[in-house]
């Protein structure tokens, strides 16, 4: 059953760590232009998100005080991230006391190597995987396929994306951009099922296909949403039950998580789990919130014989070293900032070319992959602040985009931008020159529109300049005040 699955080579794999400089920005501009023009796609994505706003607001109203609850969640993450030096070793000690084994990975290559080694040790023949964005970050599936391991993504959205040979479009809703008729065709091609336009029927096809695979797999790979220092448990949040099955039936359970997922107390989850569910999908709680403490205990009916946890750094310590943006490590990956972002809704998830899309992705990707090549993401923002308002753990997302712009200007100043600003300062500081420049500009504006000089060409491609006003603001002001200015 597993072997009949043909997984095409991904063709829109997010930029690898070694992507040549400047390519990322060029591709972003090209893809953004293309997506913004695709009105049908934009309407589809907006419609899909429509239900989210309604259920999120309904769920928020069941909190007795949502804004204060955000404070509590923010403080829980803040105090954990700022004491990672104490809490991470404490978590590891408790996790190992529970019978789990911890592996440390400094970067993506090390994480891939550890997991491939574990698969070899387990003599794995069939691997089932539940949704794990960290595994997308380290490009785990490609490495596993290269080593000859069949791996099946069990989350419905991830399964659809795996069959399509695409990375996730949205890190919580992986295939929100795909229409049901496309999914029906896809299942017809890969699984030989008859066409249907019912989401329910399509879900049942995946359900039937997957059930055998859970039973037959020898290794299950999951992510983790929280690592509880106090008890050494890992917490996994999901709706479908696929992560539960992945950690219940196979002989070996491997989890992969970033080091920033630590929280101090088990009780912190009593705040964070409902916040994550409400902000992420408008639910009171996600359907399954499961805590794992090691492999099967004596006296328990089932469960894996071994449990491994791979702790990944991959530049997270670089974010930690920046006190100004350290709070971006508070992120619980609810995806709320994507759902409310006007840029995400217009350019779509693939345009970012990153593992983590949307506003939070634009903040952290420059840290993960280099500011010089990824600063354009900080520019792709209207700075409206919707992301910061939506964040359940109060990450100051839109200001961080400004911080990234400032840092980029410091490290690699743009000479033309600098010259422009100097010129503006020189003109704006001299009222007579400002008036003269304004007058000249008002006269030449139609000419500029007609000439389309290189600097204005991109801007004018999709916009019209308004006709210039007849007189300046200052002369209009003095006229209305009766010349008393």
């Amino acid at each position, binding site marked *: 059953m597993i072997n009949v699955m043909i997984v095409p080579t991904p063709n829109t794999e997010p930029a690898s760590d070694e992507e040549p400089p400047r390519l990322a920005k060029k591709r972003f501009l090209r893809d953004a232009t293309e997506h913004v023009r695709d009105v049908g796609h934009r309407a589809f994505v907006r419609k899909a998100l429509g239900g989210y706003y309604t259920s999120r607001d309904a769920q928020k109203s069941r909190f007795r005080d949502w804004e204060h609850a955000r404070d509590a969640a923010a403080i829980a993450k803040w105090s954990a991230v700022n004491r990672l030096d104490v809490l991470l070793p404490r978590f590891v000690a408790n996790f190992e006391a529970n019978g789990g084994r911890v592996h440390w990975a400094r970067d993506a290559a090390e994480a891939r190597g550890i997991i491939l080694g574990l698969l070899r040790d387990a003599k794995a023949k069939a691997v089932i995987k539940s949704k794990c964005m960290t595994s997308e970050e380290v490009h785990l599936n490609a490495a596993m396929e290269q080593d000859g391991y069949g791996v099946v993504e069990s989350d419905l959205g991830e399964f659809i994306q795996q069959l399509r040979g695409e990375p996730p479009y949205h890190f919580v809703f992986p295939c929100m951009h795909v229409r049901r008729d496309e999914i029906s065709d896809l299942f017809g091609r890969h699984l030989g099922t008859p066409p249907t336009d019912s989401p329910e029927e399509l879900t049942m096809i995946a359900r039937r296909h997957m059930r055998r695979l859970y039973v037959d797999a020898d290794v299950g790979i999951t992510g983790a949403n929280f690592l509880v220092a106090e008890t050494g448990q890992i917490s996994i949040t999901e*709706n479908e*039950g696929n992560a539960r*099955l992945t950690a219940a039936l196979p002989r070996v359970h491997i989890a992969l998580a970033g080091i920033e997922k630590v929280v101090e107390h088990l009780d912190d989850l009593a705040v964070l789990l409902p916040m994550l569910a409400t902000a992420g999908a408008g639910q009171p709680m996600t359907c399954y919130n499961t805590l794992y403490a090691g492999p099967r205990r004596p006296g328990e009916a089932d469960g894996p014989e071994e449990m491994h946890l791979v702790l990944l750094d991959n530049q997270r310590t670089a974010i930690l070293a920046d*006190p100004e943006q350290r709070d971006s490590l508070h992120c619980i990956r609810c995806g709320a900032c994507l759902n409310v972002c006007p840029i995400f809704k217009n350019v779509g998830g693939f345009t970012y070319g990153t593992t983590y899309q949307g506003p939070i992705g634009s903040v952290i990707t420059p840290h993960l992959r280099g500011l010089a090549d990824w600063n354009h993401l900080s520019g792709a923002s209207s700075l409206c602040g919707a992301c910061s308002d939506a964040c359940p753990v109060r990450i100051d997302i839109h200001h961080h985009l400004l911080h990234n712009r400032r840092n980029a200007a410091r490290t690699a100043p743009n000479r033309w931008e600098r010259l422009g600003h100097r010129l503006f300062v020189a003109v704006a500081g001299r009222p007579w020159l400002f008036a003269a420049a304004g007058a000249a500009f008002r006269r030449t504006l139609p000419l500029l529109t007609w000439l389309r000089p290189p600097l204005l060409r991109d801007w004018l491609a999709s916009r019209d300049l308004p006709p210039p006003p007849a007189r300046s603001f200052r002369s209009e002001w003095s006229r209305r005040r009766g010349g008393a200015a």
Partner: protein
Amino acid sequence: MTAERTTARDAILARIGEALRQPAPPPHGLVARDLEPQTAPLLTILPEAVARPWLPDGGDTAAERLRILEENLGRLRALVRRVPDLTAAGDYFFALCRERDWQRVAWHAHPHVEPLVHQTPCATFRVDDPGFDKNALESCDAGITACEAVVAQTGSILVSSASCGGRGLSILPHVHVVVATLDQLVATLADALHAIRDRHAGHMPSMLSFITGPSRTGDIERILVLGAHGPKELIVILVG
């Protein structure tokens, strides 16, 4: 291999130590100014304790908790059935098996479960011993388990691998039937965590799971479908 592991661990921990030498400002835009953590000793505050009055209500009295629970389970599209005692629960379960035409139900040894299973009209499959046949469990129509606690605040059922038949029983069969007694009903998630901590002091079960409604997905056009991979139906029998 061992040397490499030590190096990676030490390198990461050293980077963390180095990074944290500069303190970060408190979280941005807190509305509760008196909560703002200024100094290290304050870091030991328990966010849950202060957050309790802000989170969704779990009810102060038994009657309120029951009302909130039933409302929440209804919204989650779980089925709730209140019965006075375990004998009545057995009658209801018998009728359920008949009505749904279940061929085989999976169960585990537990004082809440046994009285129900002993009088079912269909075949039964017990999953207490390690090494039970997973294929047999997969082919069962329903699984029946006890639970550790029921949470009014969110409509969640807390199950554990220690006293609810392991990990697979409550997730693999198509229908999950839970037997809970009214004294297991608690107000909040934190109360449930405290209860389980008291019960298993020092020996947390290898799995704890808050089950909140039947399995679901919205992955296709964000349209809700019940029964993605886990149970399509969650039936809660409340005894007492």
